[in-house]
Structure formats: C-alpha cells, structure tokens
C-alpha cells in the first residue's frame, strides 16, 4: 500500500461518525435519485401513452395541445373523421375523449376513497388511443368494462374482476394498465360512448388520433390536414409528446431541481464537516506525521482519499437503496412510480464525488496551521 493509502486507512475512525457520514451521503443519494426517478417515471408514462407508436398524428381543437391542461369545452366534431380519412396517407382516424371523472370502488359505499382520475374514452377494445400496456387483465370489451391504471386500482383497493362505480354506473375492471401513472393523476380507459355519456358530450371528441400509411411523411400529412382544417391543430407524435412532457414537468422540474440541489449541498456539507472533524480531532496525529516528514501533499491525498472512500460507499449504498426502493414501491405501493436510470446513478455519483472533494478542500486548509510540536505534548 502506498503512503496516501496508509494515511487514508490511518484516518479511519473506529467510532461511528464516518459511517454516519457515509449513511448521510447515501440518504442524499437516495433522495436525489428518487426525485430523478419520479421525474423519469412521469416522463416515461407520458411517452408511453402520448408517444404510443400506433398513433402518428393528434388533431386537437384550438387551445388544447396536450392531455393535461387546455380547454375542456373546446372539442373536435366527430363529423371531421370522414373528411380526415379522405386525405392521402391516412389509414385510420378515431376519436379520443379525455375528461377528469370521479371513480370509486363498489365496496366503498361511503365514498371515502373516491378519486378523480383522467378518463380516456376510446373505441374499445382495440381502437387507437387505448391503454399502452397491461400489468394484468385485458382491454375493456364494452360499455360496462374499464381498464384502470394499476396504481389507481391500488388506491381504490380493487383488482381485475372487481367492480367500480363511475358516473353512477357499476363497471367491471377488466385490466390493470402500466405506464399510465403521471404521479399527479392516473389514467383509466373506458368505452368512448360511456365516457361521452358521463361527461355530457355528444358527437364530439377531445382529439382525433390518426394512423398513417408508413410510406407517408407524418409532418407533410400534418401540414395537409392543417391546411384543410385551419380551425384545428395538428401535431405529429413527437410534437404532441413534447407538449405533454412540457405540461407535466413544468411545475415539477423547478421543485425537483431545488430539492436535488439541497440534497447535494447537504451531502457536501456532511463530507466537509467530517473532514473538518477529522482534522481537528486528529491534530496530534497530523502534527506527528508532519514531524516525521510526511509531505503536505501526501497528507492532503490521504485525507481526500479517505473522504472519497466515504463518498463512494455512500453513493454505492444510495444507488443500491434507490433501486431496491424502486422495486419495493412498484411491488407494494405502485402509486409512487420510480424509474431510476443508470445514467442518473452515474451522474449523481460523479456529482457527489466532485462536490464531496470540493467540500473536503476547505477544511484541508487548516492542515497548514498545525504545528508539528503539538506531537510532543503529553
């Protein structure tokens, strides 16, 4: 082992403080990765539905360019479907109705667990704009069936085969969907006519979703539809997805950035405090090492190596815990979706190591003030 390695080992404290510091760094890592994981999960869910490959174009009424916000009163007339279908390159055109509707379990007679969720009405069972993926069960087959996001089902305490109440009607849960939880709300999928009846909408839809012949350029067809129907808006899949991502992350991202920054600052502070504590507590050891001829560089490297070891232990523990938490939440509490990406873990590791080292540098300055004669004090 080289000198800085021996010095780093020499600084090990057999009491609990270094482990507490590593645990603190691990906690901060979990915090930052959880926030990033929640952010990615929301984006992934949005991509899963709004970016589904079966839909090439989204036709929306004025003032409604995404699924979350926008005018609920402005709708697209269903009569438009035949006109759009006549445009070259268009293979399929189908309506989708979105509405926030209250839903509760049949067994919940007091309505204690009634939730207002994002209803997507589509042409069941295989129409465009339906559920992107299933965790269990199958798509609804008629007006009296529903496919529900699995987190929403967990909140309601229902599963496949149970009955929920929607708009005063009893509806059977035919399936549980995945990729349909955007944290603030969850999706459920019902027959278009049922959704329209509950929402009080007639012969209109929130969007028309279009599937194109693969030989046609979506942007070109979108321009053509836009030219033909200038009162409506036409978005390619990518544009519509970007609109939705903007809406779901606009409020979330600044808060996430702030909390993540605080987490990183807390971890840096912990490392800085630990290094400061080590230097103050071990003044005699440092004085002795200086007397014995240890160079300032080797002492600095030893301290930095020690700090780096603790940060690394903390980050690795934190990453492992974050992944375990992701699996645990998915299994037991699916209402909190996490998607901890390896690139986030790498980014957090690099960031924490860098900030930890920077935090360790400040207390290292106090090394210069240690008088080697302190080693002679009894």
């Amino acid at each position, binding site marked *: 082992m080289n000198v800085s390695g021996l010095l780093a080992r020499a600084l090990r404290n057999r009491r609990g403080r270094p482990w507490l510091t590593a645990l603190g760094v691990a906690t901060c890592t979990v915090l930052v990765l959880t926030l990033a994981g929640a952010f990615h999960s929301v984006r992934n869910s949005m991509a899963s539905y709004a970016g589904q490959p079966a839909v090439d174009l989204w036709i929306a009424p004025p003032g409604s360019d995404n699924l979350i916000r926008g005018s609920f009163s402005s709708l697209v007339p269903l009569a438009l479907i035949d006109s759009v279908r006549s445009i070259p390159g268009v293979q399929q055109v189908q309506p989708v109705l979105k509405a926030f509707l209250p839903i509760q379990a049949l067994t919940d007679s007091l309505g204690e667990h009634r939730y207002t969720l994002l209803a997507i009405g589509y042409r069941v069972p295989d129409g465009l704009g339906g559920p992107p993926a299933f965790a269990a069960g199958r798509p609804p087959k008629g007006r009296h069936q529903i496919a529900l996001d699995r987190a929403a089902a967990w909140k309601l305490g229902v599963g496949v085969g149970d009955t929920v109440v929607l708009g005063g009607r009893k509806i059977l849960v035919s399936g549980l969907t995945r990729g349909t939880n955007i944290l603030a709300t969850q999706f459920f999928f019902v027959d278009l006519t049922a959704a329209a009846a509950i929402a009080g909408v007639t012969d209109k839809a929130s969007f028309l979703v279009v599937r194109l012949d693969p030989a046609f350029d979506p942007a070109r067809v979108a321009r053509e539809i836009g030219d033909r129907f200038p009162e409506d808006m036409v978005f390619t899949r990518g544009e519509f997805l970007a609109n939705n991502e903007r809406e779901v992350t606009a409020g979330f991202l600044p808060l996430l950035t702030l909390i993540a920054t605080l987490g990183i600052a807390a971890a840096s502070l912990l490392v800085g405090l630990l290094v400061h504590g080590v230097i103050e507590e071990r003044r005699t050891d440092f004085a002795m090492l200086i007397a014995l001829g240890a*160079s300032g560089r080797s002492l600095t490297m030893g301290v930095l190596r020690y700090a780096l070891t603790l940060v690394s232990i903390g980050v690795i523990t934190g990453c492992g815990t974050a992944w375990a938490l992701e699996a645990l939440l998915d299994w037991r509490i699916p209402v909190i979706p996490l998607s901890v990406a390896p690139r986030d873990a790498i980014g957090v590791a690099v960031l924490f190591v860098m900030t930890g080292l920077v935090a360790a540098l400040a207390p290292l300055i106090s090394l210069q003030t240690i008088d080697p004669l302190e080693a002679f004090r*009894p």
Partner: protein
Amino acid sequence: MSTLSLRAVRMTRGHGRRAVRVLEDITLEVHPGEVVLLEGPSGSGKTTLLGVAGGLLTPDQGDVMLAGQPIQAVNNDARRRIRSAKVGFVFQRANLLDGLTARENVLLMARLAGLTQNAAELETTRLLALLDLAPCAGRYPTELSGGEEQRVAVARALVHRPAVVLADEPTGSLDAEAGRAVASSLTSLAQEQYAAVLICTHDARLEPFATRRLQLRDGRVFDASV
C-alpha cells in the same frame, strides 16, 4: 564528525511582549552511537531544543547540522525530506495511528522515509521481531499495552535507520519495568545502527543507558556528567 550539531543556537518563542528567550547560545554535539540525556525541569526548553535539532523549528540565530546538512539553510520541503530520511522521533505518548496496526504504523514511517515497499516490509519485520513485537504486529494500538505501544514507537523511529534519534520523555508514561524495556530497546538498537541519540527526560531510570548527560537550565546547556 558529529551527526547532530548545534552551534550558538538562540531561540525565542512567542511574539511582542509575550516573547520569551527559550534557548540561549546552545552548543552541543551528538556523535554516532552516542546516547545523550538532556535533563531539565519542565518549561526549561527541552522540547524546543528537540524541535530545533529535528528541523521542526528554525532558530533565531546559530547553526544546526543534521547528518552533515545545514538545515536552516534549506527550504521547508528539503528540511522535511532530511527529517524523514535522517531523523527518528520518539514522543512521550507513543502517538501511534489508531487506524493502523502496529506493523502498518512502522511501515508508514519506512515508506515516508522513501524505502521501497519490499525494503520497508523487511526492515519492519526485522525490527518488530527484535523488539519482541512479532505477535502483536497485527494488533491495533488500542489492543496494545502501554509498553508495547512505546516499543512500536521505537521501531517506528528506527525502521529507516536514521542518523539521529530524538526522544522526548520516552518512558514518561510507563511503569518501571516497561520503562526499562523501552529505554534498553531504544538505546541498544540505536547504538547498533550507529545513530546519534538525544533523549530529553526527567526519568533517572534512563541514566544507566546514557553515554553522556546534559542539563538544560535557563536556556543554557551544562554538562551534568561531572
């Protein structure tokens, strides 16, 4: 030729109205293989003298030669290198590093002095065996007795075969038997290595091991052998 030489050394500690002249025209020489005891009451400047002799303090006046090198004439980095290569320190408290085993404490000094890993390992093993510390080599300082700790400190001071060994009350915190064992080990091994040994102490038990005794009083050194 002496290994450690101080000539007309003057040293003041503190600043302004708090300045105190600690060493006054100190001249002393310690030759290879010699064990010099420097006795004196608390506050007489023994530790300051060791600091000056070991290149940890720069005297206000005078010359200090360590293994033939004038240490006040070189910069801090060169002085540090001279110290790590040519000087061995034994402190009143063993001052072993808690996070390292006895063996690693000795090994660290050898590496600081510039010995290669192999040479450091060999010399550490040899010294620990000579000091009857082989069974304790893997133990941490908290698992050692006071006497064992101080013998590890002796091994640390000698592992790089220094030209000069400077010891500050090396038996001060030990009982009679452990103190004798440490004094015997330190002086015999240092003499075997032909090192010049300067020991500051109050401990009369060390006198039989000394080749010469000096007294430090009022910042001046007197020969106490006569």
